[in-house]
């Protein structure tokens, strides 16, 4: 054998086992070479692999391993020493690298493992967050639903819409199978199914209100789960096999206005409705907490919306009622107005129609009285006259009374002589009284003002009526009339709830008492005295004819004058006393001393005698001078005329009783003339009376006249009547500033 450095393998080269080893080594080498290639490829692909150095190491290790196995392919047969050397080198390197790698792996593998753990942890966390996000989203959506629901509910004030919307929206939001509302009935004993989402047929069924489940729901303000089998939840007919979904019930307070007036509106008087919500059947859904909360919130909102709707309904109802009442009142008022107008028209016509014949009768009867008559005829005529006078009075009274009753009568307030009124009344009743041999006495207390402001004619009517009654119903004895100023005590005594006299600065209360010793009346008849047409049964009817309208009218007049009238009697045959108190205004000229005061007021404007009265007219205007002169001549005066102030001062003398001065011409001063006349005659008592003739009676003119001392003012053009009445007043009452428009 050659001496070579060849190494000899132990086994023969062509042994089967050797062959298999050879093939395996080949494939191992292949695999070992391809693995790093794959590694490189994939690492290149992924950018974020933190352990490059490890891979390199690992790659080197594998390559070397592969190299080892590759080289060992040559060692199966005789091989040279070089091959062996290479083999050994390879093996040595491989050993080194693999040990280094092994050492490195000790550090790295725990790291890798922990990465894995962290990854798992993060995945779990992510899953959890996902879940929670889902939950939050659900809740937010629910919240949105609630807001929308509330908005829908509160946007209408119609109760029906509110409830319907609630049910519909709730059903939609919570995907309910059924949502229904039970309202309490009027009798308070039952709940009636009023609204239902899907089962309209069942609407109207009732359940008693005192079921334990209902009490349980009503006593708490939370949504409470109830059994699907309870009567309130069983709205649809039980059909077949199904697992009913969970049911929740919540109370809905029905609030009224009265509930808001105390702070705690959960008191016992609150009525509740019941809302039932059912989840779909045959599903595994359950009521979640947030869904229950949603239901409670909605129930509260519904309660508020319902209360608003109720309040609105009530106020609308009240308003409609008021409108109806208004319409009815209006119609009634118009009817009343029509009736009053018709009555007034009737009265107006009747007034004229009735009075005309009456006047004819009275006038002709009086004329006939003046002619030659036999005693019998005279008696007849007198009766006719008396009766027709009575009838005329009655007609007047009726017309007056109707005017009084509908309030259209107004008092004619003016200043008048109070004392004179009483004296006149006495004068009027004296004749009849003396025929009956009755003594009439009048007593006016000193503190009673002479002048007063009031309705003279009607006051006289009242006094005359009362005094006349006194005379009428007395057969003997005396009649006393006492008029005085009502003092505070007597005012208080006379007060009744209807009559509250109040003393004041501008008015005083007149108290009149008329006592007679005549027939009197039964105290039982007292209430009837002042009633219209009430007959007094106790009186004998001879010619008296009861009270008729007189006292009724008196009472009305007295009330108009803010007073009170009453009659007292101690009984039949004991006479009676009539009292009345009424308000009169205080007259400004109560203090004026009347020069020409005459105790007799001429009650009518009969033929006033001015014959020979010397008067002077001062007027620039020829025509009006002539007309005024004509007037005064017609009245019987002795008239002189002048056309200017100087002429006037020249001619005027004490003989002239009245001077008429035209003050309306601008530029000339009639006032100056007046002043000068007053000056001239200021010392003597009997100065001429001054009367201004003017075209306007405005305030300025009147004041001017008063200032210069003019006694009277007449508005041009002057009529006969005006002239006559002014002269009359002037001459009778003295310089009392008669202002006649």
């Amino acid at each position, binding site marked *: 054998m050659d001496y070579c450095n060849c190494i000899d393998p132990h086994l023969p080269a062509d042994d089967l086992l050797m062959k298999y080893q050879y093939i395996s080594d080949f494939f191992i080498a292949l695999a070992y070479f391809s693995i790093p290639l794959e590694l490189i490829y994939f690492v290149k692909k992924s950018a974020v692999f933190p352990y490059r150095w490890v891979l390199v190491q690992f790659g080197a290790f594998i390559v070397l391993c592969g190299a080892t196995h590759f080289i060992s392919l040559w060692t199966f047969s005789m091989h040279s020493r070089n091959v062996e050397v290479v083999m050994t080198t390879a093996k040595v390197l491989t050993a080194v690298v693999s040990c280094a790698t092994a050492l490195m792996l000790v550090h790295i593998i725990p790291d890798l493992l922990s990465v894995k753990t962290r990854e798992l942890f993060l995945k779990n966390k992510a899953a959890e967050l996902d879940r929670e996000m889902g939950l939050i989203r659900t809740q937010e959506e629910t919240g949105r639903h609630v807001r929308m629901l509330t908005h829908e509910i509160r946007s209408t004030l119609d109760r029906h819409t509110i409830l319907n919307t609630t049910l519909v929206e709730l059903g939609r939001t919570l995907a309910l199978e059924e949502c229904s509302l039970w309202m309490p009935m009027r009798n308070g004993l039952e709940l009636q199914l009023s609204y239902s989402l899907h089962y309209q047929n069942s609407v109207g069924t009732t359940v008693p209100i005192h079921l334990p489940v209902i009490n349980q729901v009503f006593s708490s303000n939370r949504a409470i789960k109830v059994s699907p089998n309870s009567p309130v939840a069983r709205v649809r007919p039980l059909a077949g096999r199904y697992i009913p979904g969970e049911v929740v019930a919540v109370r809905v307070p029905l609030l009224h206005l009265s509930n808001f007036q105390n702070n705690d509106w959960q008191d016992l008087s609150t009525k509740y409705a019941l809302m039932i919500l059912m989840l779909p059947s045959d599903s595994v859904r359950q009521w979640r907490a947030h869904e229950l909360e949603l239901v409670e919130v909605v129930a509260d909102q519904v309660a508020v919306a319902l209360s608003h709707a109720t309040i609105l309904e009530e106020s609308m109802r009240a308003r409609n009622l008021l409108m109806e009442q208004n319409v009815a009142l209006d119609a009634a008022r118009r009817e009343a107005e029509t009736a009053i107008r018709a009555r007034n028209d009737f009265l107006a016509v009747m007034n004229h129609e009735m009075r005309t014949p009456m006047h004819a009768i009275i006038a002709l009867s009086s004329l006939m009285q003046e002619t030659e008559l036999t005693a019998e005829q005279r008696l007849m005529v007198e009766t006719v006259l008396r009766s027709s006078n009575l009838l005329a009075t009655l007609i007047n009274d009726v017309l007056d009374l109707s005017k009084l009753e509908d309030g259209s009568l107004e008092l004619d307030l003016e200043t008048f002589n109070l004392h004179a009124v009483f004296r006149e009344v006495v004068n009027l009743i004296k004749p009849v009284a003396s025929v009956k041999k009755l003594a009439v006495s009048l007593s006016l207390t000193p503190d009673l003002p002479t002048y007063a402001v009031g309705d003279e004619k009607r006051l006289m009517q009242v006094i005359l009526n009362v005094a006349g009654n006194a005379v009428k119903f007395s057969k003997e004895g005396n009649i006393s009339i006492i008029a005085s100023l009502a003092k505070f005590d007597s005012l208080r005594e006379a007060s009744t709830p209807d009559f509250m006299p109040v003393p004041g600065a501008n008015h005083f209360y007149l108290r009149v008492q008329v006592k007679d010793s005549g027939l009197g009346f039964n105290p039982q008849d007292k209430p009837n005295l002042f009633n219209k047409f009430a007959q007094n049964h106790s009186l004998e009817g001879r010619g008296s004819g009861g009270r008729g309208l007189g006292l009724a009218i008196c009472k009305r007049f007295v009330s108009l004058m803010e007073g009170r009238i009453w009659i007292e009697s101690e009984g039949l045959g004991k006479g009676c006393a009539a009292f009345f108190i009424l308000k009169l205004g205080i007259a400004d000229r109560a203090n004026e001393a009347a020069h020409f005061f005459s105790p007799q007021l001429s009650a009518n404007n009969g033929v006033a005698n001015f014959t020979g009265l010397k008067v002077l007219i001062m007027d620039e205007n020829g*025509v009006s001078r002539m007309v005024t002169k004509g007037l005064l001549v017609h009245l019987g005066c002795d008239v002189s005329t002048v056309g200017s102030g100087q002429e006037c001062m020249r001619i005027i003398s004490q003989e002239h009783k009245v001077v008429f001065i035209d003050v309306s011409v601008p530029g000339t001063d009639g006032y100056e003339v007046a002043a000068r006349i007053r000056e001239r005659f200021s010392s003597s008592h009997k100065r001429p009376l001054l009367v201004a003739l003017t075209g306007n009676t405005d305030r300025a003119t009147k004041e001017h006249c008063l200032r210069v001392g003019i006694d009277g003012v007449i508005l041009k*053009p002057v009529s006969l009547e005006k002239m006559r009445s002014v002269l009359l007043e002037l001459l009778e009452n003295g310089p009392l500033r008669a202002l006649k428009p």
Partner: protein
Amino acid sequence: MDVVQLQRRYTEYLTSLFTDGFLDEQFKQLQELQDENSPDFVFEVVNLFFEDSERLLNELAKALVQPSIDFKKVDAHVHQLKGSSSSIGAGRVKNVCVAFRNICEEQNIEGCLRCMQQIKHEYSLVKNKLENLIRLEQQIIQAGGEIPVVE
């Protein structure tokens, strides 16, 4: 023409004067003042009115053609005319006078001239009417009748 017819014509005429506003209540007053003591009272007053008014109207015309019109004087004349016409009961004349006075206050020259025309017109109308009336009255008296009283 006989008395009754004359009287009827008189009554109708007078009534128409009242209705048309030429005469007013004051004229009735004047008629009332006529009695046996002053049988021609109305006649006299009416004549005086004619004289007075014509004088006043002349004065007015003169005053209004002045280069610078003295409104105070015009006003005074109109016032006089107003007084006369109202004393006699010439209603329309009086109304124009009232209007005239207002225009004088405003010192409106054109207005014054217009009013002047109106017054002249109204005056001539009422003068004519009154003259007719008086003539009727005289005819009645000559025929032996009495002048009827118109309410």
